[in-house]
């Protein structure tokens, strides 16, 4: 058998070439991971077109004809991480997703939460900001979860998302005293002044309130309703989503994301 094989090989021209090829075969045959897309592969225009809603401070707003805010800083930081320039496209709220579908923008960074109804056309990154409803107490309070609110006084803004949560919890736990106020800030005043035991407010209001009342030692034991703000990208361009998500995670792990948000809240 071996003699036959040797005779066949001897018939082939350049026998030594075949020996080398045979030796290299295992190396050639091993499937190789494709090279990760470069920034220019993912964004062939050589820039990242970012859709923003410039009417929504502190996320994006015009100050002296300049776009500023969390979403603007985040877009700039992501673009720097990816290594491409950014071009902002100001949009109205109603047209945010249509601009993405119609290829007017590559990325949507506009304080939007994940929308399950759009996931057939949109990829979302992990959250960059938690805009949910928080349970807020004073540091000395023994209230650490919603069931502790039973028998106590709970403040909230009338007609807000927090109000809806209060209605839900009223059906889940033992009775508590409802304290509706006209504004979320009044609900926080009530807790700070000891006139309520806890408040439910959105985290943006809470950040802004604490900024205005640095002396208050508030405690936020729990997010009652999570509303994560995310970045939206087209589903038919997954390499863009991979790149933006990687850049976002890099900003998060380095602490740059927290620093960036703390600049505005």
């Amino acid at each position, binding site marked *: 058998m071996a003699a036959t094989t040797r005779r066949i090989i001897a018939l082939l021209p350049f026998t030594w070439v075949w020996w080398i090829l045979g030796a290299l075969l295992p190396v050639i045959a091993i499937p190789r991971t494709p090279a990760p897309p470069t920034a220019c592969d993912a964004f062939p225009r050589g820039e990242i077109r970012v859709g923003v809603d410039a*009417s*929504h401070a502190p996320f994006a707003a015009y100050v002296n004809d300049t776009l500023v805010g969390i979403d603007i800083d985040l877009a700039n930081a992501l673009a720097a991480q990816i290594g491409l320039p950014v071009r902002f496209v100001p949009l109205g709220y109603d047209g945010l997703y*249509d601009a993405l579908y119609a290829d007017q923008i590559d990325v949507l960074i506009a304080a939007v939460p994940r929308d399950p109804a759009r996931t057939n056309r949109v990829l979302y990154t992990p959250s960059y900001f938690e805009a949910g409803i928080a349970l807020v107490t004073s540091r000395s309070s023994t209230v650490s979860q919603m069931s502790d609110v039973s028998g106590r006084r709970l403040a909230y803004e*009338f007609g807000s*998302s927090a109000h809806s949560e209060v209605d839900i919890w009223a059906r889940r736990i033992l009775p508590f005293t409802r304290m509706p106020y006209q504004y979320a800030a009044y609900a926080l005043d009530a807790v700070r002044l000891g006139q309520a035991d806890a408040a439910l407010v959105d985290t943006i209001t809470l950040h802004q309130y604490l900024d205005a009342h640095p002396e208050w030692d508030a405690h936020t034991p729990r997010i009652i309703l999570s509303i994560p703000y995310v970045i939206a990208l087209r589903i038919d361009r997954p390499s863009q989503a991979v790149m933006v998500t990687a850049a976002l995670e890099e900003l998060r792990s380095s602490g740059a994301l927290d620093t960036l948000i703390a600049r505005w809240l």
Partner: protein
Amino acid sequence: MRIQSRAVNLIQWAARLGLLIMILSSFLPPPPRAILGETHTVETMRPQVCVHTRLIDEVDEWKIAQSLQYVREMGAATIVEFFPWAYVESSRDQYNWASVDRIVRHTENQGLRVIARLGIVPEWARPIDQEHTSTQNTLTPEFYADFAEFAAEFASRYAGIIDEFIIWNEPNLAFEWGFQAVDPLRYVELLQTVYPAVKRANPNAVVMAAPLAPTLEPRGSPNGLNDLLYLEALYENGAADYFDALAIHTYGFTRPADDPPSAETLNFRRAELLRAIMIRYGDTDTPAYITETGWNDSPRWANAVSPPQRIAETIRGYEIAESWDWLESMCVWVFRFPAPTFNYPDYFTLVNVDFQRKPIYYALRSYARGLAQSETLWLPPPVE
């Protein structure tokens, strides 16, 4: 023995009959999930009060019933509701009216008048060569006749129940025009196609030209075109013969309702400038409907006011509109959303997702029904 076999026979026939009823009943439409009670009428002292609802995306029928009950109790006699073409005719010439029917069933039960806004292009009627750049608002001229056919089918089916139609929405904005170049002439061509078809289907139909978005975008802007310029262009291109009424969108933004109209300002009384254009083009007898108006009370939106201001300006807006004899109805945007946006659009609503009625709901109810507002909705601000 004979009696026994007859009894067995009877049982067998009863079983067969039962099986037959089961099979036949599977062909019947399912019973409505929200039971209709007695038919109501709207008690109101101000029949021009109207609200824009968003019911078509509602999954639970009881939420449609609950919303419309609250609308009636508020004293609003009319609603504007959006009926997407894409929902009804998702396959060409195959009409599924179920979602429209169930809304109509409840509006009739509550005694409400419905203005139908038509739009949203089905997948099959979108340009194939623009698969990655078109949207649900991209209607190209080769499909105008299909849209007209749908509108005519709608008008025919609901004649006598729904007689007022808004043809498209804010075509002066790029995104509402599917990111095609904003072009008044194209919209006139759409009206020219739709108007005769709807009139043939329902001679009593009132066809409204689309409301324009209040905007100051100049000519050549990629985002849209100033509503005043756009309306002038509609008249210049012969639109007047193809609509029976003009739909108007006018918002207060951060300005009071009394703020005087000015071409450079977006405010509530901008509606008067649109009316002035109608008169200038001799369209004096054509009425107008404000199909979206209002103020927003988001704590963070740049174009919002405070909740008490929102209430005061909305009521004042209605008082001003009482003297506009050219106005048929004025509809507040928006009664309720089926799901929260968790963003400032939630602060346009009168009722939240969980049917919590907001202070502005009660204020509008007091205005529409002539009731004194007595509810105490919130506590006074805490004092140190």
